[in-house]
């Protein structure tokens, strides 16, 4: 009996007489390892490089993506929060200006804070600028109204309204005092290979596997119990009109590839995107963009000198 015990302890390299010491050591090791008390950590804020608009290579500092709680520090906090809410719930709060079942942030992922997800981060400093579609100077309010009339199939919001001022205030806050001749080094949209030709038949198969759960078998979207939009309709009378960027195959594909679906990744604020190949994205976009949708009467003024992109709808 003793022999087998000693064999065992010998095998373990432990002297049987020192068992209590060994046990004590093991317990101590456990207690110590269980007692390294970690400290609370602060927010790990997303940071992007700042660059000069005329020299993208010059390193001039860092942009820190703000959290909404810091809006409270601003003198016009109420206005900024109002702007944020208007962007999130445009249809519910501004029904007379929004024709479609869409909100600004249906396309601007996570309140315009995500690169490749149509962020507003640089918007305040980018406008006014010459828009390729209008071929003339457009200011930020004018650009926002482009969305109201096209993507949201509605009416322009008066530039002097409290609502437009609030939306601009949110975008100004999001710019975080980045100076006018600097910009945050991010892309607003991702890239897809525009030489690919979309196959709408294959696109429809992908649509039913990966999109229809939220956007509906007939593209009708989903509303909540109050009738407010959760997932916007992708075609039909309540969707964006043909003047919207999202109605163009390659613009839609670039959005879909990097941002859709949501709630399918464990990373990213919406857990979104990055499951489709370029071809998948072009196919599914070819399918849904070309479904029936409202016309856009203002289309006659677009690309006045004829420099139309190849996926323009008119």
């Amino acid at each position: 009996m003793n022999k087998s015990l000693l064999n065992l302890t010998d095998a373990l390299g432990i002297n049987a007489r020192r068992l209590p010491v060994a046990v004590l050591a093991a317990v101590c090791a456990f207690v110590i390892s269980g007692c390294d008390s970690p400290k609370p950590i602060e927010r790990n804020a997303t940071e992007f490089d700042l660059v000069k608009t005329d020299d993208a290579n010059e390193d001039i500092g860092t942009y820190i993506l703000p959290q909404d709680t810091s809006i409270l520090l601003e003198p016009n906090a109420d206005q900024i929060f109002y702007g944020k809410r208007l962007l999130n719930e445009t249809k519910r709060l501004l029904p007379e200006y929004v024709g479609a079942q869409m909100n600004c942030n249906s396309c601007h992922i996570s309140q315009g804070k995500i690169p490749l997800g149509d962020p507003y981060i640089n918007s305040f400093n980018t406008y006014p600028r010459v828009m390729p579609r209008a071929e003339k100077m457009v200011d930020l309010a004018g650009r926002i109204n482009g969305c109201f009339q096209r993507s949201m199939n509605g009416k322009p919001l008066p530039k002097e309204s409290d609502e437009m001022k609030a939306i601009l205030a949110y975008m100004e806050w999001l710019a975080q005092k980045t100076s006018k001749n600097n910009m945050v080094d991010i892309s607003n949209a991702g890239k897809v290979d525009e030489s690919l030709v979309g196959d709408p038949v294959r696109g429809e198969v992908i649509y039913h596997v990966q999109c229809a759960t939220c956007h509906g078998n007939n593209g009708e979207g989903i509303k909540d119990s109050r009738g407010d939009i959760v997932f916007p309709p992708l075609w039909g009378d309540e969707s964006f009109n043909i003047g919207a960027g999202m109605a163009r195959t390659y613009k839609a594909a670039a959005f879909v590839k990097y941002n859709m679906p949501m709630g399918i990744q464990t990373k990213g604020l919406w857990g979104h995107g990055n499951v489709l190949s370029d071809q998948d994205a072009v196919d599914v976009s070819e399918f849904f963009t070309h479904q029936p949708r409202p016309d856009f009467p203002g289309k006659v003024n677009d690309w006045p000198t004829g420099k139309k992109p190849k996926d323009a709808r008119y």
Partner: protein
Amino acid sequence: MRKWPLTIGILGVGGLALAFTLGQVLPHLRTTTSAIEVNINDPELIKKGEYVARTADCVACHTTLGGADFAGGLPMLTPLGAIYSTNITPDKETGIGSYTFDDFNNATKHGVRQDNSALYPAMPYPSYQIMPDEDMAAMYAYFMSGVKAVKQENKPSEMPPILNWRWPLAYWQAIFAPEREFVAETDDAVLARGQYLIEGPGHCGSCHTERGIGFQEIALSNADSEEFLSGAVIDGWRAKSLRGEHDGLAIWSTAELVDFFKTGRTDITAAFGAMAEVVEHSTQYMTEDDLYAMSAYLKTLSPKPGEPVTVPAKVDVTTQKLMDGDYDSRGAILYAEYCQVCHRADGKGVPRIFPALEGNSAVYSRDADSVLQITLSGGRMPNTKHDRMAFTMPEFINLSDADVAEVVNYIRNSWTNQGSTVDVDDVVQMRHFLSKKPKTGTDVAPDLSVPAAEKRSQM
């Protein structure tokens, strides 16, 4: 005086040796031999065994993320170090290929290995021990003939020396897992079947019953005590109470339970964490009859003693405030920024896509571990053939610990929810725990490709 240490030493060594010897004998008292001749090539028996193995969810613990089915290697973190599940494929050298039916039966039901040493109670043999030998025979046929042999050595445990001795486990078994037969609570065949599945192969108590000082489940059946299935914390998840109180299954209907076991979701909630694994690997494959039997049985369990069946009515003022932009706390601002787009102003989410936070018993349940863990690490619903897509919750790992506490407290106490509150230290502890926890299948994003969808629909 000088002789005392020597005497104590001799007595100690002698006592230890006696204990060790008895420890060698104890397993022999547990093992059984069976007269059953198992035809491991009988296709019907193999098929039956596959179903029994599904109900017992063997694959969940005996497979690693990305590893071969049943080849083992999954770490189970204990306070004393990790132990690893073993290779139960029919490989003769590294698996259980050399096991006779009796060896298999004794390991599975009695926790005694082929070499007569005791298994760690991480293996739920105290539950499995009520399974009939006929079912074990079917399972044996499946493991010998229906499972692909994989050559993969078992990993040694990381328990420190002495604490990794196996013979003391024989005493654990003698004290905490004595011989037990299944005793039906009623004559109702459906309820009895449900009770058997819950108590036996389903080993629900492994997670949902509190453990005692010896790491034993404090009740193995409802007859033992009303602590059975009354909720516990395991792997940083609150495995909720399955009894009749408000925090338990009071607000669940039998039909909702069936839907949950089958699809991993209802209109209100979704399985996450360890339960998502259970649905994905086990319950989604069970027959409608068995799912109904389990659900109906669970609904017969009385409330945990001292716990209320209902809570005082509370008026929802949260929804209107969020809709009006009346952010009355830091938690509200955080909710509006990070959570509201999916879980909505009314906290009701979107049925079968985004789970509700309002009126969801997993959210307001007694402690906040599950809410803390899923907020920090995200997760995904189980994949089943019943829904086209399995959705995820993204990790909010970049939030400060203080803000996670704010938003979790907000969620657990908004709308009509009435939960306890957490403090920053709870978040710190959970984040620390998660930094060491291995990833599982439902921690990673689902495969959304068209071929994967086709495969799923054929399951």
